[in-house]
């Protein structure tokens, strides 16, 4: 016999299998990290409880602050830019029948399927001082524009950002294209009857219809910007100087090279909170715009 209470418990039963994985592999390690962040520990000797000292140090450190600043810059390149570029690509390729459309879509998505390490090594060559991009610039007579992209104190971070844009744009196009299929054709017909031009139609029908996919795309890309590590570790290691240091690089160095596990844990916790906050914000905004 189904009781009221039984029915209420049913959703939790569905969540149980996922939860069984979530607890040991996500929650427990995270709790461990939170715990570690209150200690001064080198991984070997007795850990000393220091309260919020690791957090105080992190907030006071110009290097940690600049690492989060760099992560913000990467949010633009990994998240905002791919979404802005993917929108016209997806809409354009769904509205017109360009020959080779599917091939094009596959090509755009391809970077997403390549391991970040391979992406990093390849772009390291492409962006090198004697690499193809600079060779192209010189061929155009733009010798002054040929710079050591990843070794430049000015250009290293934006260059890495562009690599991120290149990697993530395919994901956004794919998400948006799937989203476009969900928008009822009747809405476009209605818009046409009301005399809406392409721009008006985009604002009134397409964009609201893509609200969900845009939120998903932003969530995924923004998280990948905030936790960027592998691409930077392979290409610049945080250099030149500290121009491309991001929280992930600091966490790795402090935990595995300097033996400052507490401090690394504190930065990791701060990073997690920022990730939670940003994704929460993105989804709240997407919710509010609900028609």
């Amino acid at each position, binding site marked *: 016999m189904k009781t009221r209470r039984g029915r209420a418990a049913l*959703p939790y039963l569905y969540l149980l299998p996922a939860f069984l994985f979530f607890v040991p592999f996500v*929650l*427990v390690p*995270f*709790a*461990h*990290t*939170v*715990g*570690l*962040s*209150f*200690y001064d*520990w*080198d*991984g*070997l*000797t*007795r*850990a000393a*409880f220091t309260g919020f000292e690791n957090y105080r140090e992190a907030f006071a450190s110009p*290097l940690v602050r600049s690492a989060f600043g760099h992560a913000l810059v990467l949010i633009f390149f990994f998240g905002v830019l791919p979404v802005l570029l993917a929108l016209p690509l997806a809409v354009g390729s769904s509205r017109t029948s360009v020959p080779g459309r599917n091939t094009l879509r596959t090509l755009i998505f391809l970077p997403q399927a390549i391991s970040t390490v391979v992406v990093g090594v390849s772009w*390291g060559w492409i*962006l*090198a*001082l*004697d690499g193809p991009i600079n060779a192209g610039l010189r061929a155009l007579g733009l010798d002054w524009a040929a710079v*050591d*992209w*990843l*070794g*430049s*104190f000015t250009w*290293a971070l934006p260059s890495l950002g562009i690599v991120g844009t290149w990697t993530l744009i395919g994901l956004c196009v794919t998400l948006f294209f799937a989203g476009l299929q969900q928008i009822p054709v009747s809405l476009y017909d209605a818009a046409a009857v009301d005399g809406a031009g392409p721009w008006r139609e985009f604002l009134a029908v397409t964009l609201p219809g893509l609200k969900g996919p845009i939120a998903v795309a932003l969530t995924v890309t923004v998280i990948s910007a905030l936790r960027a590590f592998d691409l930077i570790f392979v290409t*610049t*290691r*945080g*250099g*030149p*100087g*500290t121009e491309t*240091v991001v929280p992930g690089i*600091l966490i790795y*160095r*402090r935990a*595995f*090279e*300097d*033996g*400052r596990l507490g401090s690394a844990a504190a930065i990791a916790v701060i990073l997690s909170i920022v990730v939670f906050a940003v994704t929460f914000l993105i989804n709240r905004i997407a919710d509010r715009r609900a028609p």
Partner: protein
Amino acid sequence: MDLIPRARRRYALHGLMAALVIAGILVGCGSNDRDGAVEPGRDAAAGGRHALEVWTPESGTRLQLVQRRADEFSAAHPDVKVNFTIRDFGSYPAQLKLALASDSAPDVVIGNLGWSLDGPLIKAGQLRALDPWATRYGWDKRFAEVAQRQMRFTDDGKQFGRGSIFGIPYAADVIGWFYNVGKLKILNIGVPATLDELEAALGTARRAGEVPIMLGNRPQWPGLHLFYLVSGDLASDREINGIVFGDRSVKWTAPSFVASARKLAQWNAKGYIAAGANSMSPDDALAKFVRGTGVFLPTGSWNAAELSAAMDDNVAFFLTPPIRKGDPRRATGSVGYGWHITAASRQADLAAEFIDFMTQEAFAIQLAASGDISPLAIGGGLPQAPSRLAGEIFAAWQSVLANGTLLPYLDFSAPDGAEVLYPTMQSIIAGQETPERGLALIEQSRERFLDSL
């Protein structure tokens, strides 16, 4: 659609966070129990076959030589079996720490000089002071005084460069200048005998359209190696040793270090350092040098085998020439990481015998025959060096040991080189940071580390 009302969900979230924090603190407390003190080991009872557990991050030719020497040890001691555990250099420290904290800790392990590994392990009481065996086997006399300093730590692991001998090294390295012999001839430059001559040679090379200094500074530490080559001339022994071994009366902001850093920035501004160095890996720089780009390649002796294999006698080596012609040359180098006996080993005497065997002159000669250098000052009776380059490096290294002019790596001063020292030096060389401000930043981080000891 909300399955759970929003307010309740928020309470659930608060509850979850609170639980996480509490659980976290409890877990953190757990790590508090991890006490470094290990019961002193006893030697295994006689009889039966002993297994000596040995850990190393070594690879390539050196690993082959080490294993061959260990086989010779086993041959001389039929009752002893040597079991090697080999881990790649990158993951070695983390894995070693875990192994030492486990119930089945190895007997003999390779560490790493200074604060990256030896210091924390000694502080945690996981390595033994080797003094009793050092006297028995004459280790305290086997190595030059400048080399011994790199082997010593205080028993509390808080001071490097003094106290007991903790590690016995077997293979060494030194930083110097490799150069393209043919290019020097074409440019009509002699091998520089003074620092001024070296600078003049860089200028000549630059004016001839060559890349004077090939450098791959992407990992950021190679720039510091360039700094060693200059500060070795401009700074005093007391200053360099003081920085490394924790003398607070010496600071990175000393005029000699500022002058060294400024010279590098000037070299870079004059175009002496390869364009694109900051995004080039050391391997790529080496490959370019081999293919004929770059007159000088400042780097460590460990690249010798690869260079002479690729360039034969077109590559040669010298240590930074002195300021005054004829003065003994000073060079940054290390006696290499050493063999240690773990506190947990129950067969410390056997371990010591093994270590002694592995570091005797016979091994140094085997190493030299392979084109490598060892911490031992070797007199005559050397086998033919495998290449002219190897012979030059061997002679340069022996002169440094004999003259007592070996300088320790400046990045031994603190473990966080990758976070502050390397990137700041890269910024100084690039002219993005003034030598004064950059070195003040580096000194600040060194002092913070010394305070934390």
